[in-house]
């Protein structure tokens, strides 16, 4: 009971560290995709390796935070909501790592004229996640400011969605040189990049509902 301040401080630090991992993971995701599009395979593999490590570390931290919340009865009214929030944030780095692994395993053949579109789509998904992290950070200190932050997340999510649609349309309607299997393969990757921005949108909506819930 009397160590509650010490425990709170330690959990605060763990949460901050967890967010750092997600942030680095997101940067590596963007870097990895760009390396792949530029055929810099060794750099791409380096990014894949890094994101793999970051994902593992984020998982460990998440489990520690979860454990501390239950063991020390921290925020008993909202513990499950906050743990759910951390799970959803962790999903973002999981998806990013899986996507880079899929690039590594399946090595999709991306035509030069479509590469630019993939770059744009990746950038929009990246920005969506990039804005999600400060929103999640500020939730713990100034919940009333979360609303301002999540607007950007939602904006970049919409952007990613429209870019993904445009990319798919180009692949299926304007790329006659590609066979159907290649088109489906390219669509699959566009879909998965878009999914990362979807995951950040889920976090944003969860944050806004949590703010309402904890509001005095």
């Amino acid at each position, binding site marked *: 009971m009397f160590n509650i301040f010490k425990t709170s401080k330690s*959990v*605060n630090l763990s949460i901050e560290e967890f967010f750092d991992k997600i942030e680095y993971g997101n940067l590596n995701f963007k870097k990895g995709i760009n390396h792949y599009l530029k055929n810099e395979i060794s750099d791409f593999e380096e990014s894949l390796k890094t994101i793999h490590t970051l994902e593992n570390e984020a998982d460990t931290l998440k489990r520690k935070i979860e454990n501390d919340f239950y063991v020390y009865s921290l*925020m008993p*009214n909202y513990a499950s909501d906050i743990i759910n929030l951390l799970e959803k944030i962790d999903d973002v780095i999981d998806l990013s790592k899986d996507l880079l692994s899929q690039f590594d395993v399946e090595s999709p053949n991306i035509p030069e004229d479509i590469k630019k579109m993939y770059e744009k789509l990746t950038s929009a998904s990246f920005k969506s996640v990039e804005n999600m992290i400060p929103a999640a950070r500020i939730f713990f200190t100034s919940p*009333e400011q979360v609303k301002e932050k999540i607007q950007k997340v939602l904006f970049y999510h919409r952007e990613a969605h429209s870019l993904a649609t445009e990319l798919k349309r180009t692949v299926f309607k304007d790329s006659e040189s590609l066979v159907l299997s290649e088109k489906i393969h390219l669509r699959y990757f566009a879909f998965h990049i878009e999914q990362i921005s979807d995951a950040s949108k889920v976090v944003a909506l969860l944050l806004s509902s949590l703010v309402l819930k904890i509001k005095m």
Partner: protein
Amino acid sequence: MFFFFLTSGLFLGWALGANDAANVFGSAVGSKMIRFRQAAIIASIFVILGAVLQGSGGAESLGKLGSIDAIGGAFTVSLAAGITVFWMTKYNLPVSSTQAIVGAIIGWNFFTSSSTDPQSLVKIVTTWVAGPILGGVFAILIYKLVKYILIKSKTHLLTQDAITKYALIAVGAFGSYSLGANNIGNVVGVFVPSAPKIELDFGIFVLDGTQILFFIGGLAIALGIITYSKRVIMTVGNSLMKLTSETAFVVVFSHSLVLFIFSSQSLSDFFVFIGLPPIPLVPVSSSQVIVGSILGISLLKGGRNVDYSVLGKIAAGWVATPVLAGLISFISLFFLSNVFNVKVTQIPTENIVKEQIQITQPEINLPISTLNQPIVNTTDLQAERIDLIQITLIVSLIALILVAIYLLWINRNLRIQLKNTDYNDQILKYNEQQAVLEYELKITNNQNARLEAAVKTKKKAQKKLALDIIQKTEVLAQLKTEIDEIKKKPENEIKYSDLNNIKTLIVEQLNIEKERKSLNNYIQELNINFYQNLSTKYPELSEKEKRLCALLRLNLSSKEIASILGISFKSVEINRYRIRKKMSLKKDEKLHHIINKL
């Protein structure tokens, strides 16, 4: 006898503790911010402290309303209030012990034809209305202040959670103190005039009869908190409205402030000192103040979720509870007085009967403030003083010695238990290690046995093959001899059978090369390590020489080796000489010994 009559008051105290603890710690325990045991201990201590230190104000006001001068009357009034609370709670009607006790006292006034002080009545009823309103106002102000601090400080949610935990404990303690101070009058207020005139001297402080009574009442409330409030907290603690921990803090704090204000003599005196009217020291309903506080916050948030029917129910409770308690009190007093002949007042019975028949103004007007005037044994104005210093010291010393012995005994048992556990753990660990080692040894032995058997079998097969080759070489030599003999014979003497024998020997000869290759494979397979050692130690040896070494390792003679390798005896000898040279062996060193050592 006094303590028997006091049971009805203690029952009321128990019910109050069981129900009203939820108002103080309900949200905190219900939301698991604080453990129930922790809350119960804090609440119990502070309720007793509040009752003993600050409980007289509320009780005095009830005394002014009607000074119940006989223990039988106090018992009946308290019981009537208890029955009312119990009955109305059972049917889910809003009820307050304060209103019940006031109604029951008025019932006693009616029965004994005592006058009810209208001023006191108005004062009490006003506080019933003022309590919830004040609770709401305080809640709004504190809520605004807390929210402002939280926004400005930008505290991390987890730190905020930790602060809230401590704040809930502090405010819970304050709430319990205020509850004890304000509501003790409901529990034992009616017994004050009948309290025994004694003083207990503890050396540091002295408790008079009234304070002892309040202490006992406080104990009853504490008992209610410990034994039954958990159930109330878990079932109805949060039913009114689900509160966040911060809102719970605001609600409990405002509730505690209201109860404190209506029970603090010092604060009232301070008001008078600065020229304001004194604060009426009256027991107010804890539940209704809580409801008022919650409604205040709801109104501040826009009032969308406010259930206005709650206000109606509270107002109905202000009327229904006293009326019902008064009726029960009046009827009970009638029965007790006329059927069981229990003395319910010091006023002569004939006067009561007379007054009841004539229904005129009562002529007997007992002094209103009778708190410190004993009605029973009125002649004995000097309280009996009991010196408890020596007794307390001796009892404390004995208790300390007993506790020390008990702790030593527990400590010793724990140490023995710990030692035994350690010893058992170690034995268990050793046994496990031994079992593991035995198992590993068994596995290794089995493996070795299997390997040895395999080596033996292969060596046998190798030797057999070698011997077969030797045998076949001998057969070839025989064949050569036979052909020579046939050649020596004249042509007409050569028999068909001679030729047939030779043919058989030739067919066998055809298989020799195949078997020789097989032998080489066997030798290599069996002597992988030997070949490696040989190559490492003597890298200049050729493949043929290595093979010769492998055959020497089988203890085969030069002649036998010559047969196996299909070379002459002399060639084997020359090869052996070359090997010795490459190995730089001295004359007295035997080649097969060196090879077998590898």
